[in-house]
């Protein structure tokens, strides 16, 4: 009973914070109706995938409860929300001619040495699958990063009892993070990390790899870099670019690709790296006046 009431209390507490954003989605598209609906759809697809080993009956019995359980795990929820935002940003950029799958950088690597080409090809395939799934609002557990996967498997065990535990053990044994799209992108960004590789140029790298490299260099979670590509988060992108050590010129150029209509307070590109990092970390003292 206490747990039930705690859930009701959480919902009431969130009302004041979330409701204004949901109602007037204009000033916070990251909480827009489309983003919310798509996030729910991903959780639903994920739950169905996790329950795949339990047969038709297991799916019907547990699906609603598992979606709720997954949604109650902040790390997993944030990851799914970031996937949605990434998909939305990719579509927005695709409308302006930036291929969501094959970027110029990939074309270069596919023609490079054998190891790089093989890695690039695998990452490219994963990225193509991701784009396809995003458009169909699908998600599979095998693509989750390890921490989110761990949460998902705990949720599965919690909801579906013994059968759920057995399914979780099976999924655990077959999971390989190195084959996920995000790990492949991270490894590719690391393997091609030389000054000549234009990883922090979204036009050349493509949004997916740009977000991975930006997160690596700025020392933040990839979800945060993806958030910065969403409409309404322009200054965050500016700060991340500076925190990643991108020079003012290229930073302005990257901004012009991702947020061409952004009107930012002028000195953002001149901000010192450590101040940008401090602002991002919410450290007002380090960020100065």
């Amino acid at each position, binding site marked *: 009973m206490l747990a039930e009431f705690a859930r009701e209390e959480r919902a009431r507490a969130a009302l004041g914070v979330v409701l204004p954003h949901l109602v007037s989605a204009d000033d916070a598209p990251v909480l827009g109706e489309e983003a919310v609906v798509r996030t729910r759809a991903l959780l639903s697809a994920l739950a169905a995938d996790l329950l795949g080993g339990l047969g038709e009956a297991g799916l019907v019995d547990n699906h609603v409860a598992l979606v709720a359980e997954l949604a109650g795990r902040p790390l997993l929820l944030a990851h799914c929300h970031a996937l949605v935002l990434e998909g939305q940003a990719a579509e927005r950029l695709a409308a302006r001619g930036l291929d969501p799958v094959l970027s110029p950088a990939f074309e270069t690597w596919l023609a490079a040495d054998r*190891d790089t080409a093989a890695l690039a090809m695998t990452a490219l395939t994963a990225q193509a699958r991701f784009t396809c799934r995003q458009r169909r609002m699908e998600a599979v557990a095998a693509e989750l990063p390890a921490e989110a996967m*761990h949460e998902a498997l705990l949720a599965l065990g919690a909801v579906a009892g013994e059968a759920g535990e057995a399914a979780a053990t099976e999924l655990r044994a077959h999971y390989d993070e190195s084959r996920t799209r995000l790990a492949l992108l991270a490894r590719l960004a690391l393997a091609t*990390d030389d000054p000549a590789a234009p990883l922090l140029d979204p036009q050349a790298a493509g949004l997916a790899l740009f977000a991975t490299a930006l997160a690596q260099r700025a020392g933040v979670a990839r979800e945060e870099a993806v958030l910065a590509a969403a409409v309404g988060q322009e200054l965050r992108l500016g700060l991340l670019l500076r925190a990643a050590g991108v020079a003012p010129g290229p930073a302005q150029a990257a901004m012009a690709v991702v947020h061409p209509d952004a009107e930012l307070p002028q000195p953002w590109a001149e901000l010192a790296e450590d101040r940008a990092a401090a602002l991002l970390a919410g450290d007002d003292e380090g960020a100065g006046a």
Partner: protein
Amino acid sequence: MTGGVNGAALARGASDGEDRLIAADEPLLGLHLRCGGEFPGPIAIPALREAVQRARVTGLRLATAVTAQDGTEGVTAWVEIDPPTNDEAGCRIAVRQWQTRAAPAEDDRVAARRRAALARQTAEFSARLDTRQCAVVAEGHAPDLAGLAERMTAEPGKPWTEFVTIEGSTHHQPLHWRLLDGAPVRIGGSERPWHAIILPIAGPAGGEPVGFELHLVSDVPFAGPPEPVAGSGAAAPGETARMIGREVAPVLRQPIARIVANAETIRSRLMGPLAEEYSAYAADIASAGQHLLTLIDDLTDLEVVESPEFRTSPDRIDLAEVARQASGILGVKSRERGIEIDAPKLGESLPAVAEFRRVLQVLLNLIGNALRYAPEGSQVWIRLEQDGEFARVIVADQGPGLDEAQQARVFGKFERLGRSGDGGSGLGLYISRRLARAMGGELSVESAPGQGARFILSVPAGSAAAA
């Protein structure tokens, strides 16, 4: 098991149920040890320890980038970690990528500043050049260079290269400054061999330099005005003793420098394609020529230190700074040999009273020897200590070491300890010890076969307040 993209692992390792590293290949093992780990022992690379822990607790196969600092360089590795199985309580670690970031931009700037400081300190002639390499102001600090400064400032429109002879070059137009930087130079009115150091003065936007500093440096000290040619023709005893430095070296240096320069041109195939074998022969010629040049330098030094009027000019110096400069100068060579020089950190200091240039010369000799004879992948330590009235620099290597008989002979003139063909002249340590003694100090060695060698340079200590 993991699909083709993963490729072969660069290194593998394994942990036990308590996240202790129980097996590891290089370079993983080396990083673990440099991070302060024991083997076997708890994983000392923080990010790796965390990832292994996570794999063990979640039972998931992880793939992640692991970043670590090991003092001199940053390492980023891509690792994949297999969680424990029914048979094994620990994890298996596969390293797929290994990237080191040595010498970040900051270090390069420090090295450039150090080189500039060294040039300014040791130069006996300095000039400020404009973009066309014409002298705007010039000043000679040695008596035999005063004429050069006067000639240069008298004709301001002429590039500096017109007033000197660049050895091994017949160009009259000034070459690109990078090609002239380090060039051997002969100067009318001076008997000594010189070389040029050119430091660009960066423009406002970091573009083309807006001018240059020209410094002329000589390894041979000014020996006083040339003796007027005596009617009798019989040379004074002091003069016969200085024959190599004054007469033989200048005559030999020029043709040998030309041989080396031409051999280098052939070796690098600047004039067109060439069969591999010939390029290799040219490399041999160039290195033999370099050896001859070093030998001439050593013989010239030998004459200088053996002459009865040889004196050093002691000054208040910081041994830590000299050690840092010496290790900076040999940085490229140490990276080529894969040997790490562990020099005193910025901020360390040990005041002494000695001649900066001579201490640097001794340290370059000691560290150079260590780099030559120690095995690849080993370390050379430079340590400082004060012992009463003496300040000491210790250069320790992980080379084969010396037994007692060798230690007794190693400072001897032309002593090669049976070695040959490695570019040594057998004079370096002899000269170094003479220099140390001339400064009121000593150069000694402690070693045992298989234990490496510790060369200890002692010079009179300076007071901290004065340094």
